[in-house]
């Protein structure tokens, strides 16, 4: 049965969500990884005050590495259980990519919503511009989701899958990572955050989505 691309995206997203909720270990691993890292940092600081830029860097390091524990599984799990072929036969490539990207974005937003208030609480952070922080977190999550979905597709079938994912992700995500740190520092009262950085992050997110969309077909359709 032929379906529209939107229907396809919706179906893939729902499938990912149901599978994710059924297999709770992946969610738990990601959230616990973030919590453990944050607890380590907080315990090490013993209530000491940190500079806004250092706080921002810590927040993004936690988010980035915790995301690796969840985002790398979107294709690998299907490959392991053998459902990738069925998806290849019945799903349109772009619907699969966008559905999985949307799910990864949702995963990242849940992660950021979980860890950021705890981060603020445990490290006694004063958020002077909350709107800016929310904007940066959303755009950062968008960038990680866009790059992470394509990189996850690339690493499927590799023999060192998990470590490979982080190696491939970092250079591609740095253009999101560095402005995100600058802007988060600004939202913690560390200087002014140029709105152009925010626009730049949005633009780069868009470039990643379009780039992933153009390249995904080469991965999805075998020779």
């Amino acid at each position, binding site marked *: 049965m032929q379906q529209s691309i939107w229907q396809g995206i919706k179906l893939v997203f729902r499938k990912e969500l149901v599978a994710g909720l059924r297999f709770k270990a992946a969610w738990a691993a990601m959230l616990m990884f973030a919590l453990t890292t944050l607890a380590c940092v907080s315990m090490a600081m013993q209530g000491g005050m940190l500079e806004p830029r250092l706080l921002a860097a810590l927040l993004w390091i936690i988010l980035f590495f915790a995301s690796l524990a969840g985002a790398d599984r979107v294709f690998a799990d299907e490959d392991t259980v053998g459902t990738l072929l069925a998806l290849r036969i019945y799903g349109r490539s772009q619907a699969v990519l966008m559905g999985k990207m949307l799910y990864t974005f949702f995963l990242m937003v849940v992660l950021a919503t979980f860890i950021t208030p705890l981060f603020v609480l445990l490290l006694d952070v004063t958020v002077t511009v909350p709107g800016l922080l929310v904007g940066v977190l959303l755009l950062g999550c968008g960038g990680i989701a866009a*790059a992470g979905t*394509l*990189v996850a597709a*690339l*690493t499927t*079938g*590799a*023999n*060192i899958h998990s470590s*490979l994912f982080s*190696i*491939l992700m*970092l*250079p*591609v995500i*740095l*253009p999101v990572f*560095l*402005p995100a740190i*600058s802007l988060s520092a600004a939202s913690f009262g560390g200087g002014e955050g140029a709105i152009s*950085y925010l626009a*730049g992050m949005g633009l*780069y997110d868009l*470039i*990643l989505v379009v*780039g*992933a969309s153009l*390249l995904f077909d*080469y*991965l999805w359709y075998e*020779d």
Partner: protein
Amino acid sequence: MNLKQGNVLLAAIGSLTLVLLYLVFWVVPPAQGLGNYVRIAFFHIPLAWVSVLAFFMSAGWGAGYLRRRELRFDALSAASAKLGLIFVVLATVSGAIFSKLTWGAYWNWDPRQTTIFVLLLIYGAYLTLRAAMPEPNRRARVSAVYALFSFLTVPFLVFVIPRLFFSLHPSPVINGSGSLAMEPVMFMTLMVGLLDATLVYVWLVQKRISRENREAAA
């Protein structure tokens, strides 16, 4: 590459290298503010240029593979990336030495240092990805996709990073107004260096491909 072509290229590289060494150590005067340290730049800039060129070529040959599905494009892309990694390491080391001599620190995350470091990470990631993929066709496909995907960082590295961080690095040779910010003799020496390094890159890519072809035929 046949033997005659290879020898001609090698002779050209040898001659250019001798001319370059003569120009750098006997003709180029000490630069204002940099003194004799400026001589390092005539090796560092060509190394950095080839690092970027090899990245462009690797992505280009990757695109060639995706369009034509011929493994020779993948071999060229991989050869270019392997050489690119060597050149980017040499550019990073020579840049760090120059940085220590002129600014007092080997590394300070200057925008240009950040750019070259990201390039180093991309090369490393690309070659690790290849090493982790045992099946040749899948390896060629994923490597080409990654080379092109990582290419998306180029506008950021060139236009955004320099605005994000303060830089001590000298201005580009041809500045924003389009005028030449270098003495003619230095500019000529730099051009010789760039041509020499480019030819070395071409020769090494051809040599690597010839060797792989011989191994495949054996």
